């Protein structure tokens, strides 16, 4: 078995150097397909960042009726903090609300004067609720509307933001579908391109395969060198692509943050080096091997 494995490895390596033109085309194909897959990765990342950015800015507030005890408000705060999907519930007291309002109103002399003349705090205690996903907000509202604490609440800002929240839910869902569709299309294109080149490379070896078959070679012995060959050009092609990608990211490092805030392509690449590159490499290798299996099947029927 060891001798057979060594022979298969050697034959695969020989194929790589014997069929120079096909090897060059295969390397080129691997680079193009890697580009496709990385376009998919980046689109996925960018869209996700965009959705996260929008979601992070979503929250709503619950304004309490004047005179509601702080302890009661704290109880509601605790309940909401334990609500599934809620990230943060902050209590803004009447005093803090006034401070905040004064700061914001400083630039408006009319409001500042009105507050001084009023000589009392017209604001109320309120809670700001932030959830992981926009889908959580309607659930919180539903809970609050049915809870006994509803009578303490004067006003919920959710109804004001409801349309925005619903739009963001709908947009993020649509974008998710679009990205998935884009990734699927990219993978199909990649598979078609790779499959074509695998077909050509196997066709060029058609006679040799037939000869091996006729002298009694097993399927494993015939497939083996092609699998090794695919591995070699996928590995080398991806390596060349990676070098090009690093170079490209280095040269365009200043451009990206203007496209997506805080996006540092080199950090993105190296922080996720093994996951992203491993995934891309194995996707290409997997398609190559499936293509090799399918293309060889025809010649193994002899």
């Amino acid at each position, binding site marked *: 078995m060891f*001798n*057979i494995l060594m022979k298969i490895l050697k034959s695969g390596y020989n194929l790589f150097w014997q069929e120079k033109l096909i090897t060059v085309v295969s390397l080129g194909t691997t680079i193009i397909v890697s580009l496709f897959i990385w376009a998919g990765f980046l689109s996925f990342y960018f869209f996700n960042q965009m959705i996260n950015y929008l979601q992070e800015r979503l929250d709503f507030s619950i304004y309490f009726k004047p005179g509601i005890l702080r302890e009661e408000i704290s109880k509601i705060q605790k309940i909401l903090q334990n609500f599934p999907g809620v990230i943060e519930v902050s209590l803004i007291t009447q005093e803090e609300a006034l401070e905040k309002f004064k700061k914001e109103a400083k630039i408006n002399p009319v409001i500042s004067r009105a507050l001084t003349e009023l000589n009392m705090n017209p604001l109320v205690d309120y809670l700001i609720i932030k959830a992981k996903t926009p889908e959580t907000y309607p659930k919180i509202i539903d809970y609050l509307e049915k809870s006994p604490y509803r009578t303490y609440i004067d006003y919920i800002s959710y109804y004001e933001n409801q349309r925005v929240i619903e739009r963001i839910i709908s947009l993020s869902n649509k974008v998710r579908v679009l990205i998935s569709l884009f990734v699927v299309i990219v993978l199909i294109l990649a598979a078609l391109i790779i499959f074509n080149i695998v077909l050509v490379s196997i066709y060029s070896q058609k006679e040799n395969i037939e000869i091996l078959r006729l002298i009694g070679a097993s399927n494993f012995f015939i497939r083996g060198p092609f699998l090794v060959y695919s591995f070699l050009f996928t590995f080398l092609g991806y390596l060349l692509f990676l070098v090009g990608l690093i170079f490209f990211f280095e040269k365009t490092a200043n451009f990206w943050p203007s496209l997506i805030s805080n996006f540092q392509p080199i950090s993105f690449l190296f922080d996720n080096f093994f996951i992203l590159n491993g995934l891309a490499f194995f996707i290409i290798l997997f398609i190559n091997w499936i293509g090799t299996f399918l293309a060889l099947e025809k010649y193994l029927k002899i």
Partner: protein
Amino acid sequence: MIIFKNVTKVYASDVLALDNVSFEIKGGEFVLIIGRSGAGKTTVLKILRREEDPTRGVVYYKNRNLLEIPRKRLAEIRRKISIIYQDFKLIDKKTVFENIALPLEILGRNFSEIKKEIWKVAEKLKIKKKLDQLAGTLSGGEKQKVCLARCLITKPEVILADEPTGNLDPIASFEIIEILKNLNKDEGITVVLATHNREVVEGLKTRVLTLNSGRLIRDENPGAFTLL
């Protein structure tokens, strides 16, 4: 050793290649299959190595129904029933040594063992000096010898020869037929030779199966049942 029983082969395009052909070949026999182009000679050889399956009928090799052997195990049979072709089927970009070594590499033999076996076979077929040459650079006669060497390296029980002299000049043809005769005589290898070369047929006083349009029309044995 080989029994062909009521074998019919119809190709996908409704071409009748063999029509109810039956014959038996004993171990150590030298049998000629003759007939015009398209008579079904190559189909008989292909069926004997399961390169084609018959539409009807059965084929036995050493009392085993060839058609019941799973495809995965065909490689074993193909090493026992070896074949040489008119177009040689050598890998031109490999050296003679590498071509002959292939069947043993498939079996996982180590290099020193392969080298030893190749030297023996090359010595027998007088191609030792050609071992490092690329197969594509050889003459027709030399290529056919390499083809034979590749067959012999696995110590086959049967050699099928499909028009082995078809691409050779008369001298090279004579040489190849002589080698086949000697292999049959000295080593007891069963030889089944398909040809339409009249000179080959007349030079070999041995059993002749005549095919015409897929039918076995004659099975003559001029006394000398085998060349042994």
